[in-house]
């Protein structure tokens, strides 16, 4: 018997309309765990680097994490992996909600979509019955609307539906996949779904999920739940509200937005508005929030309620979570009320709430600076808020300039020319980043921004405080019950870290310490992504309920795979390296690994070089960021080493950077 996982994947060839239930190899689970890990293996094996994102040969994989559907609190992530049309690298966005556990109960670990359907369709999975169904009547429907229509026509209110809106259908490069209160947003995976002509995947399951050691497993689960309860009553003192309490930032619950509104940039990631937050705004925004928020809601099997049902009078109800509360508002220099109104339309369209507002603010900046003119924007309204709604529609319908903006700031700037790339200033690996512009280089964040292949800072940071605590006694207090650290040396790094002086940014923590810290932070995210765990209870947080010491037990008691910390760390390193291998094979190199030039005002080129050199070495990568043959073989990734040698990505001497593939040159020339 297979434990925690079902042992079956659903292979759907959309070109032929062929559906197959295929047993997976349990040895792959041992090596790559599941979720992201096994997704990376499939993409490596089956999607060669020549395959374009919008090719029938690209795969779109919906995976439930290894432990999804077991009683482990908050283990509900769907990991969607494909080749991103925005970066042309591997995208592995995730979503919470209810879809992944339902897929498990239906008897599958993954749905692997290949080919391209001739007509718009949706997939309906009910245990053993799997159908490709006509979706022509759903064309142009909103993502939330679609889910409801499908539940209704199937007469299955309990079906869980992942759907795209018009943005995905029209292949907007930053289209999302929406699923009730959750969405998989980054990297344009919704566009790949639209390209495959799949409007939605609906699933319902009524089968059992087994665990290997029931009593032991339940004991771990209960301990975690108890700890969550304790953490709810004992927020971490001295940090900003969203870091003090667990959850995938509790943006729907909190009203105090001083930190975001005064530290994040407004407009096209341009202006910091110190002193913005005052009593008047606080009371107005609180009122706005309370008027539209019907209820705080959770994902499957989690008490944290990070999402909310939003009901703006006159508009259809939708659900929201996290920072999307503020992204539109801040991009448009508008009020919170505007943010809720426009997010409703954007959610139905199915769009990434980080990229979309920035693209629109970028377009208006180009207009203000004469790079785009009235000829490019015929019919642009006078009113600022109306302009955002107008641009949103143009982008999704791909009309006029909207067709160009639908490619995101990086590609749009290339196409517009006339110096537009000066304005596409906030991307890493071609994806719009959080609007943060800071003063002093933070060496830990420098490494995370450079090398994070999930491309969103929130998907690599966590565990270690973002900044030093001013007073030694606070630091002492913080480390006292910090049992989540992999080793006590991490406590010392933090104890010695000062806001200024010799032991402060950017020279402390030292490059070696930074490597250690970043590696730990990244590792915990990768473990979450294989198990299907929510980062809001794990990798994203300080002192989370799940950590490197209890995860091995969850895997051993849950999935029945003998596990300890070293084995788990090695497995995580294995599929982390495989993700990098997929990207290296597609042309990613050192020059792609850098934060936006203006992310920090104070930069230190020599130190930055040293940091990256040290980190690459620490990871077992050469100076181009390519995993060396030794590293690959040590991780049982010999097949990657062979491939790299054959392609000349690595040479026999290993350390010499090999030939770069054509992909990259193309990308650079736009």
């Amino acid at each position, binding site marked *: 018997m297979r434990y925690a996982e079902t042992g079956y994947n659903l292979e759907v060839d959309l070109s032929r309309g062929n559906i197959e239930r295929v047993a997976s190899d349990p040895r792959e689970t041992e090596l790559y765990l599941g979720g992201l890990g096994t997704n990376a293996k499939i993409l490596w094996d089956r999607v060669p680097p020549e395959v374009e994102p919008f090719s029938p040969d690209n795969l779109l994989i919906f995976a439930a994490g290894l432990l999804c559907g077991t009683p482990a609190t908050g283990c509900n992530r769907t990991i969607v992996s494909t080749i991103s049309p925005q970066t042309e690298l591997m995208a592995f966005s995730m979503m919470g909600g209810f879809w992944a556990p339902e897929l498990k109960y239906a008897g599958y670990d993954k749905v692997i979509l290949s080919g391209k359907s001739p007509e718009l369709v949706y997939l309906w999975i009910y245990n053993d019955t799997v159908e490709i169904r006509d979706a022509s009547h759903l064309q142009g429907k909103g993502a939330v609307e679609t889910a409801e229509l499908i539940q209704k026509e199937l007469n299955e209110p309990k079906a869980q539906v992942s759907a795209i809106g018009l943005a995905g259908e029209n292949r907007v490069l930053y289209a999302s996949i929406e699923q009730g209160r959750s969405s998989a947003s980054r990297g344009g995976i919704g566009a790949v779904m639209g390209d495959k002509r799949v409007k939605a995947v609906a699933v319902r399951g009524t089968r059992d999920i087994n665990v290997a050691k*029931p009593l032991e497993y339940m004991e771990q689960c209960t301990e975690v739940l108890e700890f969550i309860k304790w953490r709810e009553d004992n927020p971490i003192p001295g940090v900003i509200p969203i870091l003090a309490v667990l959850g995938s930032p509790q943006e729907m619950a909190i009203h105090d937005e001083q930190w975001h509104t005064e530290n994040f940039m407004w407009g096209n990631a341009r202006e910091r508005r110190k002193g913005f937050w005052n009593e008047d705004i606080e009371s107005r925004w609180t009122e706005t929030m309370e008027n539209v928020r019907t209820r705080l809601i959770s994902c499957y099997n989690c008490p944290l309620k990070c999402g909310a049902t939003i009901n703006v009078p006159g508009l259809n109800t939708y659900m929201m979570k996290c920072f999307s509360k503020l992204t539109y508002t801040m991009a448009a220099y508008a009020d919170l009320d505007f943010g809720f109104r426009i997010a409703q339309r954007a959610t139905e369209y199915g769009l990434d709430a980080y990229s979309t507002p920035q693209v629109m603010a970028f377009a208006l900046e180009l207009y203000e600076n004469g790079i785009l003119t009235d000829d490019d924007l015929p019919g642009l309204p006078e009113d600022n808020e109306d302009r955002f709604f107008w641009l949103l529609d143009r982008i999704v319908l791909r009309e006029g300039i909207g067709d160009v903006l639908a490619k995101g700031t990086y590609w749009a700037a290339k196409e517009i020319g006339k110096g537009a790339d000066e304005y596409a200033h906030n991307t890493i690996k071609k994806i719009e980043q959080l609007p943060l512009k800071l003063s002093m280089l933070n060496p830990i964040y420098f490494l995370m921004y450079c090398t994070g292949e999930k491309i969103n800072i929130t998907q690599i940071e966590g565990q270690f405080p973002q900044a030093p605590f001013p007073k030694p006694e606070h630091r002492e207090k913080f480390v006292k019950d910090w049992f989540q650290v992999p080793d006590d040396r991490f406590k010392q790094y933090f104890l010695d870290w000062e806001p200024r002086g010799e032991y402060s940014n950017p020279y402390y923590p030292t490059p070696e310490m930074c490597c250690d810290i970043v590696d730990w932070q990244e590792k915990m995210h990768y473990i979450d992504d294989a198990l299907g765990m929510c980062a809001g209870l794990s990798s994203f947080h300080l002192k989370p309920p799940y950590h490197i010491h209890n995860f091995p037990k969850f895997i051993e008691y849950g999935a029945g795979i003998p596990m300890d910390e070293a084995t788990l760390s090695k497995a995580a390193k294995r599929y982390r390296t495989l993700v990098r291998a997929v990207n290296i094979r597609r042309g990613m190199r050192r020059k792609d690994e850098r934060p936006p030039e203006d992310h920090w005002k104070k930069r230190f080129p020599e130190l930055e070089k040293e940091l990256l050199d040290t980190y690459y070495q620490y990871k077992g990568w050469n100076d181009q960021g390519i995993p060396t043959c030794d590293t690959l073989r040590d991780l049982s990734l010999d097949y990657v080493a062979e491939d790299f040698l054959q392609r000349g990505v690595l040479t026999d001497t290993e350390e010499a950077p090999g030939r770069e593939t054509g992909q990259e040159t193309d990308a650079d020339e736009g």
Partner: protein
Amino acid sequence: MTDAKQTKTVKTIKINADLCNGCRACEVVCSAFHAEPKYSSNNPARSRVRVIRDPLRDLYVPVYAGEPAGAECAGRDKYIIDGKEYDECAFCRAACPSRDLFKEPDSGLPLRCDMCEGEDEPLCVKWCITDALTLEEREEEAEEQEEPEELEFGLESLANKFGWEKMQDALARMAQRE
């Protein structure tokens, strides 16, 4: 057995639907607790509490499996909540011939909440840390009455479904095979 009045502690679960966040942890833990062996699997379709969720209409109602109904009710009505029609059965506690709810997915046997017999506290209550489910205990005067055992309860439902004779035959056959 005497007929004398005795007091007994009646445990009830109070449901505050306003506090429910729709997470279905109650379904997870209930089905895990009743798995054989205990906690060896889980499957919300086997849970004895089910959350009726309709997020867009802000409807979250945890419903507990009560006494099974022998036949479906006549003259059923509709509920209209926030503009959407719900079948009256939507909120009913009974396993009933008319539907799959509160029945074991494989055998079709009816399910009934047993307050997690043997545990100090019902597990759905314990796992609902947002307090939508809480336990209330009160003393009540009551006739001493034997509750039918789980086994008896199951057999009775089988008998209702297939008839006594068929069931006795089946039992006899099974006993021979053992």
